[in-house]
């Protein structure tokens, strides 16, 4: 057990590492050192390049340029197995990719040894058990033979996570990469994981720990690196200034405190939410959303923003809690019920949740309100096209016309179609989930203008995002969420960006 000296030689070193996908450069020159006996936390927003970086380290992708050095030696490894042989082990976030259903727990634990032929080609399940017990013991997992023999399908998510960790630790690694290991774990399971991580640190393993949970980073990490747009933009050692870390993760936006619109002050509550639990175990929240203004809900990943939006829209089973829409009980069982009540949602992933491959603007536009286009039992395509043309003009959609397919448009123009179609009727509540994702500045301006006009006309517009600059651009009132709770609720003009960031990173 070596004490961690101030600067032992790095176990893994990245030097000007870049990675391109086609013409798109995702990693733009990463310099990073992982030292033995230290936990380095990696923080980054969606799209910052975290997954790509992890995949390069894990041997899933080759780097485009730059060097990976292990113990000071430049190495090339193109496959996950080669990485493992060098002592670099990764536990990926998606356990589905690594667990083999249909095999026993023991076979899953020894999967790599089986795949490499290190186990006899013909082996009974019983003959694998001693080695499996040995591997499980490295994590002090008290798994008996009956447990090891059962189908891995029977295991809960937490046990799967432990299994994968045990698999990664079947030989003591030099470098261990953990990608959001606690995202699926309960509190007590997470605590167990932390004690394992601490023990590995004492044994001199260099650990890269990716997480969005700042409380974990604070209690676990020795070093901190922030990734933004393919570069490391902030490095810290204990004690951390997490506010500064999050500010650098979210970008320059945080420096400009000015909102460039006439504030709307609302016209009374449209939607009231009472005792709603966003997650099963989160504390209940109360919210009153007013018409006649834009309410911005901001939070990091896992804050429960999308879950809240889907609950309001009836797209997700509501747990405990109740809602009132303009004073009347509102409990939509499905999106259709929400739409009939005048509650609309523009979902966060337009390709997966909004667009229909091969469909024209006109057809996409009319879909939520088909009955408006029917007369005498017949769908009136002329009306469909003329209404779509009006939306094209209102939203300045760049297109060859109502008959062009939505797939052919740029991201910003696709998003305009997604938003415009919900404004053809006057919404009571319009929820925009990440409306600016993959949207250029020009389209962004148009979208926020139209959304604010809709609010001015009396609708309750709710805008959800994870970027301070974006929420500033649209919202009159800002609500900050952390892990299902509301940590700040204020008029946008009354609060600074620092306050927002601080509330976003508030530790439970």
């Amino acid at each position, binding site marked *: 057990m070596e004490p961690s000296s101030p600067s032992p030689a790095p176990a893994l070193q990245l030097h000007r590492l870049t990675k391109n996908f086609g013409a798109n450069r995702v990693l733009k020159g990463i310099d990073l050192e992982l030292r033995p006996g230290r936990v380095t936390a990696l923080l980054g927003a969606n799209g910052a390049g975290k997954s790509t970086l992890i995949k390069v380290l894990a041997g899933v992708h080759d780097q485009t340029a730059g060097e990976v050095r292990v113990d000071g030696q430049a190495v090339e490894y193109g496959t996950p197995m080669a990485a493992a042989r060098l002592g670099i082990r990764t536990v990926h976030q998606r356990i589905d990719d690594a667990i083999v259903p249909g095999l026993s727990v023991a076979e899953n634990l020894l999967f790599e040894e089986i795949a490499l032929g290190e186990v006899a080609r013909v082996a009974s399940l019983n003959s694998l058990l001693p080695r499996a017990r040995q591997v499980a013991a490295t994590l002090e997992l008290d798994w008996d033979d009956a447990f090891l023999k059962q189908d891995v399908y029977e295991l809960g998510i937490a046990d799967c996570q432990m299994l994968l960790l045990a698999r990664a630790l079947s030989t003591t690694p030099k470098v261990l990469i953990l990608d959001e290991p606690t995202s699926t774990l309960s509190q007590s399971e997470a605590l167990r994981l932390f004690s394992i991580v601490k023990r590995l640190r004492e044994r001199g393993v260099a650990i890269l720990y990716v997480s969005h949970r700042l409380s974990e980073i604070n209690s676990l990490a020795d070093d901190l690196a922030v990734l933004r747009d393919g570069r490391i933009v902030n490095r810290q050692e204990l004690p951390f200034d997490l506010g500064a870390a999050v500010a650098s993760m979210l970008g320059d936006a945080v420096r400009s405190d000015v909102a460039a619109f006439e504030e709307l002050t609302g016209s009374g509550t449209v939607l009231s939410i009472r005792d709603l639990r966003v997650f099963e175990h989160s504390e209940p929240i109360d919210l009153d959303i007013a018409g006649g203004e834009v309410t911005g809900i901001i939070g990091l990943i896992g804050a429960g923003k999308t879950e809240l939006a889907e609950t309001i829209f009836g797209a997700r089973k509501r747990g405990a809690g109740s809602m009132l829409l303009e004073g009347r009980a509102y409990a939509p069982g499905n999106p259709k019920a929400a739409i009939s009540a005048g509650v609309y*949602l523009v979902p966060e992933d337009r390709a997966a949740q909004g667009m229909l491959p091969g469909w024209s603007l006109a057809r996409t536009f009319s879909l939520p309100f088909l009955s408006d286009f029917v007369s005498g039992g017949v769908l009136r395509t002329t009306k469909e096209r003329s209404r779509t043309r009006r939306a*094209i003009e209102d939203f300045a959609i760049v297109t060859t016309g109502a008959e062009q397919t939505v797939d*052919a448009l740029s991201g910003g123009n696709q998003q305009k179609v997604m938003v415009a179609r919900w404004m053809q009727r006057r919404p009571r509540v319009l929820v925009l989930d990440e409306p600016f994702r993959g949207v250029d500045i020009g389209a962004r301006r148009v979208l926020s203008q139209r959304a604010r006009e809709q609010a001015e006309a009396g609708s309750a517009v709710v805008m959800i995002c994870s970027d301070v600059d974006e929420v500033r651009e649209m919202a009159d009132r800002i609500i900050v969420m952390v892990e299902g709770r509301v940590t700040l609720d204020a008029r946008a003009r009354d609060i600074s960006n620092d306050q927002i960031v601080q509330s976003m990173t508030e530790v439970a």
Partner: protein
Amino acid sequence: MADTTAIPAPVRVSALDRARDIVVKYGFLAVTVIAFVFFAVTEPAFASSNSLFSMLKFASVTAILGLGVMFSMIVGGLDLSIGSVAGLGVQLAAMTMVFYNLTAGTAVVAVLVAGLIVGLLNAFLIVVCKIPDLLATLGMMFVIQGMKMIPVAGQSVSSGMIMPNGSSAPGKFDPVFLMIDRGSLGPIPVPVLIMLVLVVACWFVLTRTSWGRILYAIGANPEAARLAGIRVGLHRGAAYVISSLFASVAGIILVSRIGQGDVNAGASSLLEAVAVALVGTSVLGANKPNAWGTLLGAVLVVIVLTGMTMMGFEYYYQDTAKGLVVIVALLFSFTLSRKKVRYAPAT
């Protein structure tokens, strides 16, 4: 607003791509016409109006089955039980008249009700029990094929037969019932009429009503459809009910044609129906299942089969010919087309 009229730079389309688009769009139609002309020239009897109508009549059962299975394809699935539902209709109609001595009208109603029940069962298995549609309807196919053997002890039902209990059957095929296949309205045989009415009805529903739009939306992206307020399960279920009902109609025409409750009837028609619906997907560059395309597919299959028979090919060449027709049609959609094909069955 001047700046809104700015149009994205047009994608450059090479002459080769343009030629390919034309081939994709009209290629299959051309194949049909060429096949027709070829047979008409080599076999003068082929193109007589008599033989034209008998070909259409021949095509009607497959076309109606194809129209039904088309609905399941539109919502992104595939109904494998249609052949057995048609066979069930054949036997049920025969039993109603021969075993129970009831009228043609009762027989028709009984068959349609049976189709409705099977459709609802399929919908229940697929939508409520969440069994993948291919597997649910595959299971249903075997259940129906097996169950219908039980009351007839595996025998075909015909007028005057000895019933499983030893007595001779009290009833016979109602002459009115036999007229479904043999009758005609002016020069147009009744089955052809039924087929045309159904084609036009399907075309209208699918392209001119909101329900058709909803079905295509479910097939294109069920999650986007759900978030646009569509009750996806309800409409998917309805598509399977339609599929079964159409199969029952096909069964009625089939039993009226063969005049007995053949236990094996309908079994082979599943693949043919799927084939013509797939051919229909490829026709005129539609790239999605559609009513007129399905009709054209059925007609082409019949042209090829009739032509081959007239040229003296034995019946056992027919399956090979059908298979080739399907593959050629799919080449137009999947291989040559630059557009993505919209028919993608759930895996």
